[in-house]
């Protein structure tokens, strides 16, 4: 667009900077609040930097803050989340890779119908499956366990991971697969020799996206974890909304940053891939 008179450009950049500030301010406030002590919160301005920087709120949020009856901070929940997210991400990604490969390159009857069925599943509100899922976990004796949460996250992640890999593998010329089959290569050999070597970018997208989704989940965590397998999002909510004692916003904010840190780090280093997962999901979803 040739509309580049200097003032127009200046206004444009000013507006963009303003909006960027608008997006960053909440995070800035959370961060500075987490480094203040309670007395300063009472008298000070929420926008100002801490007069005396302290990590007391961070230590308390990590290992001593009350989340309901227990007062062990977020640490146990953080570890629960880690224990849940690693197997759930790996299993759902591997299943998605094979499913996507089969759907994209091995034409058989019903492949499109299966794909549509998986896609429509995205729109179903989880509330419509919560009750049977809770009973099902009960039958398997997986209620209130991390293994149960892993199973749930894998089951509801497959549709997305399958779609991601299918849309990636579909762009591989099918003549390549046909040539390999004529030479006698089978399903798994073709995957290993042709598809696996080109899969690093899509595995990265898939792992980043699944990690973010599963780490940030709250509904499944709240419904299925009991008191023994609570993920960190549920722990944070209990910390923030606990009715015991005085409300300490600095501890709440430190807890929020602790909860957000893993996905933020992933976003900072893999933002490019994160966006690709997002648009892949949106275009189809």
């Amino acid at each position, binding site marked *: 667009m040739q509309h580049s008179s200097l003032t127009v450009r200046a206004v444009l950049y000013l507006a963009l900077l303003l*909006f960027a500030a608008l997006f960053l301010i909440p995070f800035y406030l959370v961060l500075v609040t987490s480094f203040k002590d309670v007395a300063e919160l009472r008298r000070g301005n929420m926008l100002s930097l801490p007069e005396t920087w302290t990590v007391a709120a961070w230590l308390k949020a990590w290992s001593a803050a009350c989340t309901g009856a227990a007062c062990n901070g977020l640490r146990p929940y953080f570890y629960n989340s880690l224990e849940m997210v690693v197997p759930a991400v790996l299993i759902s990604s591997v299943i998605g890779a094979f*499913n996507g490969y089969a759907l994209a390159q091995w034409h058989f009857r019903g492949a499109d119908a299966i794909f549509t069925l998986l896609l429509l599943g995205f729109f179903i*509100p989880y509330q419509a499956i919560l009750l049977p899922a809770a009973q099902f976990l009960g039958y398997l004796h997986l209620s209130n366990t991390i293994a149960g949460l892993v199973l749930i996250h894998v089951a509801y992640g497959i*549709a997305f991971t399958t779609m991601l890999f299918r849309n990636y593998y579909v762009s591989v010329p099918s003549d390549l697969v*046909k040539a390999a089959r004529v030479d006698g290569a089978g399903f798994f050999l073709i995957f290993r020799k042709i598809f696996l070597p080109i899969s690093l970018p899509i595995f990265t997208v898939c792992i980043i996206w699944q990690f973010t989704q599963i780490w*940030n989940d709250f509904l499944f965590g709240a419904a299925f974890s009991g008191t023994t397998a609570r993920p960190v999002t549920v722990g944070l909510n209990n910390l923030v*909304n606990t009715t015991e004692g005085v409300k300490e916003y600095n501890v709440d904010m430190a807890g929020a940053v602790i909860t957000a840190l893993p996905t*933020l780090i992933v976003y900072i280093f893999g933002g490019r891939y994160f966006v690709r997962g997002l648009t892949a999901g949106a275009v189809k979803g």
Partner: protein
Amino acid sequence: MTALQTIASVRQRKSQSSVSAWFERSVPALVLSPGVCVSVIFVYGFVLVTGYLSFTPSTLMPRYALVGLDRYRDLFSNDVWWESVNNLAWFTVPFIIGSAAFGLLLAILMDQRIRYEGALRATFLYPLALSQIVAGTAWQWLFNPTYGLERAVQNFGWSSFRFNWLGNPDLAIFCVVIAAIWQCTGFVASLFLAGLRSVDDEIVKAAQIDGASLPTIYRRIILPVIRPVFFSVTLILAHLAIKTFDIIVVMTAGGPGTATWLPSYFMYTFAFERGRMGIGAASAMMMLAMIVAVLVPLMYLESRATRNAT
């Protein structure tokens, strides 16, 4: 089907006789089926079970006797349910309009061949990498009347400034709307930006040669071309709105009173906290019905707009 595909399928049919060839041919289906079965059972099977439960007298534990539409009668005579539906409307409309308008504005601004586009996009998108619980915690603090935004503005000298929306039953829902818009706008902007980038440069250049101003070009040429994007944005935002749950729990816990209950919150509370499984299941089915009622017309419009555009 291409010629090569036909040859391949003929080749397959010829080798059908031997068992190992049959196995070799079935490997893709065998690999695919466990994942698909799990997915179909967990999604569609469980929806059917929820539907069944909504016709039973289940309370704390499931009971499988059928009692017809009793649970739906209970639901429809429950004032809190209707308040939740009403709140959902007050949440959804400003949420969709706000995120779409703000997202489109950001997309148009970013479409002006600016520098640092990557950094700006990353800034607008980072809220999406956060859990709604984290976002809600932050915004609850900002909206806190004693120490939050209200005090900050007062400290700037506007001492009569009042901002206690969270404590006001009529306004609390808009606090949640603001937080939700903050979280979704970057995503909406990237959808719009992708749409804007797909518009043929030649049309725009031709309009410029004809002397059309930039706002006119957007209003008369570019935005009509990306009409399908408007439908998909509305579709995505509407279904996100109906599913909204986490951010309500952490910001307001449905309060003050029941002023920010949404159907999702109603379902969770009745099914998991009050031991009213039948009503919970009925409300879940109504949520599903809402999603279908929103999606089907929008999907139809989107497919029609896409067909017209190409």
